[in-house]
């Protein structure tokens, strides 16, 4: 369970100009929920996702993951939590260009501090097979299609068996059909693996297909 309480995010743009990205957000994400954060661009939905994903810190307010108050954790502990608890899927895929498909998928395991119950390479290969990427193990990201890259990104997000998948406009860079395939994959993972999934989107059609729709506008949840 992820709980956000009285959360604010503000940016000091200038000496006297403060931009408020998030205003007094109170939100609880239950385990195993498939929700969407939906809103127009600039509404603060990405900022919200970054805070949920522990990439960013709120200016005010409290983030609790399970029973842990995130503000009490060190940078290393937060890194470990990102490593083990969260899997990110980005609009830009964000694969590392100089690493192969296999290496990209295995990378989170390299940064793992705990003893892994699985062999990262075997697991990566099984994800490659599961996502229809057979034969692309040793390809570099720029040699495969956008849809394939996004599936590699999802495989990378899944290798550490996270509780939470955060997808920021995961279909934004894909054509409708490929995008639909990615969404279907996320839905399937949610069903079979009982992973909590949060999709950030500006597309109401995508949002409509999720269990819970969190609408955000001008930094406030509607």
């Amino acid at each position, binding site marked *: 369970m992820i709980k956000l309480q009285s959360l604010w995010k503000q940016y000091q743009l200038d000496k006297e100009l403060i931009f408020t990205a998030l205003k007094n957000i109170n939100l609880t994400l239950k385990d195993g929920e498939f929700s969407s954060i939906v809103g127009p661009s600039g509404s603060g939905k990405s900022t919200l996702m*970054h805070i949920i*994903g522990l*990439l*960013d810190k709120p200016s005010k307010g409290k983030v609790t993951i399970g029973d842990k108050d995130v503000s009490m954790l060190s*940078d*290393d502990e937060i*890194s*470990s939590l*990102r*490593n*083990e608890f969260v899997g*990110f899927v*980005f609009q830009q895929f*964000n*694969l*590392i260009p*100089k*690493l192969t498909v296999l*290496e990209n998928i*295995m*990378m*989170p*395991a*390299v*940064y*793992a501090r705990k003893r892994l119950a699985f062999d*990262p*390479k075997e697991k990566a290969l099984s994800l490659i097979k599961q996502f229809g990427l057979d034969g692309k193990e040793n390809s570099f990201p720029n040699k495969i299609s956008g849809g394939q890259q996004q599936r590699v990104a999802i495989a*990378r997000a899944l290798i*550490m068996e996270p509780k939470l998948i955060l997808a920021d406009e995961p279909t934004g860079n894909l054509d409708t059909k490929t995008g639909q395939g990615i969404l279907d994959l996320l839905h399937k993972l949610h069903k079979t693996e009982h992973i909590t999934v949060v999709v950030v989107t500006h597309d109401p059609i995508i949002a409509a297909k999720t269990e819970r729709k969190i609408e955000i506008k001008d930094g406030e949840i509607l």
Partner: protein
Amino acid sequence: MNYILFILKSAIEDFSRNKGRTFLTSMGILIGVFAVVLLIAFGLGLKKYINDQFESLGTNLIRVIPGKILQGGSFRSGPSALGAIRFDEKDISRLQRLKSALYVVPVVSKSISVSIGKGSELGDLYASSADIFASLNLKSQYGDIFTRKEVEKRSKIVVIGPKIAEKLFGSADLALDKNVKIEGQTFKVMGVLEAKGGGGFGGPDLDSFVYMPYTTAQVFNPDKKFIAIIVKAKSDISVDQVKKEISDSLLKRYKKDDFSVIDQAELLSAIGSIFGIMNAVLIAIAAVSLIVGGIGIMNIMYVTVTERIKEIGIRRAIGARKTDILYQFLAESIALSILGGVMGLLLAYGVVLLIQKLFPAYIDTGSVALALGVSSLIGVLFGVFPAKKAADLSPIDAIRYE
């Protein structure tokens, strides 16, 4: 995948993508390490060379010279360094009475020009007694060395080194029994010595000397004084003991500061310390290029970090800690620096191999350790700031960076 392997692989992959840049950056370290290692190799070679030169004369050779030229193991200058006194026959006979002295020979030396017909060569006249040859381990190659007889008779003969013989006559054997003119006087070449090798770098070039009975040389040296006395100690007596006896004997006649009694080891260490200082200065100058190389690495690492901000963000998003990022970039700068170090070392090794026939320069294990140690240290010192910059980037700013 092993963590360290993964980090190294990242570094090497980055190099292979930027081959030109990697090479140029490591070139700074390459040049620095090359220069330092080569200079150390030269220094070592020089030391060995000088050692060999003096050792061929025997360690139990003691020189008595006017003045105090050595002080505290190094050469000194000033009026008292050269001294005003000159030795004479009395000193020789006094020292010859010492039981510990095997040979006591006077030395008169003078720069001269030696001529045959039209050709003439510059050389050093070394006038002494017959025991000079035994004292300096010199043997004749052609003809004979002079003996007591020639000294007593003031024979107008010379024994010459093979180098000057070759210069004058084209071949050493042709010099025998020929006449040479020295300062307008004619002398007969009685013998040509075996080559002793060496010369230069403070070592005496015995092969270019013209040896003459000191009695004969009195035509150039009317006051019958000697500028030095060479004493060969008996081999079973310690050099220090002999030196003390010589000093005690001479102190009956001269003041303490009027003369010096120097053994080979002292002379060697004094010469060695001069070259040591010169070598150290050169190495220090060369080391500056290592710092310049380090700055080059630092510069390129800052560029690399900036180019890869997005990648740093991605790595942080999937769980890399600050230290993971720090190590990754540090590994890269160290690898870059060691790459330069190894190339510099190999290049220096190649040059040493090439010149070894001419000069006994060599690379010892200390130099190898120094080259690798210094280049890794430079990698750390100049890599840590860019790496720290990378590690301290905020994950969210980094991943949003375009």
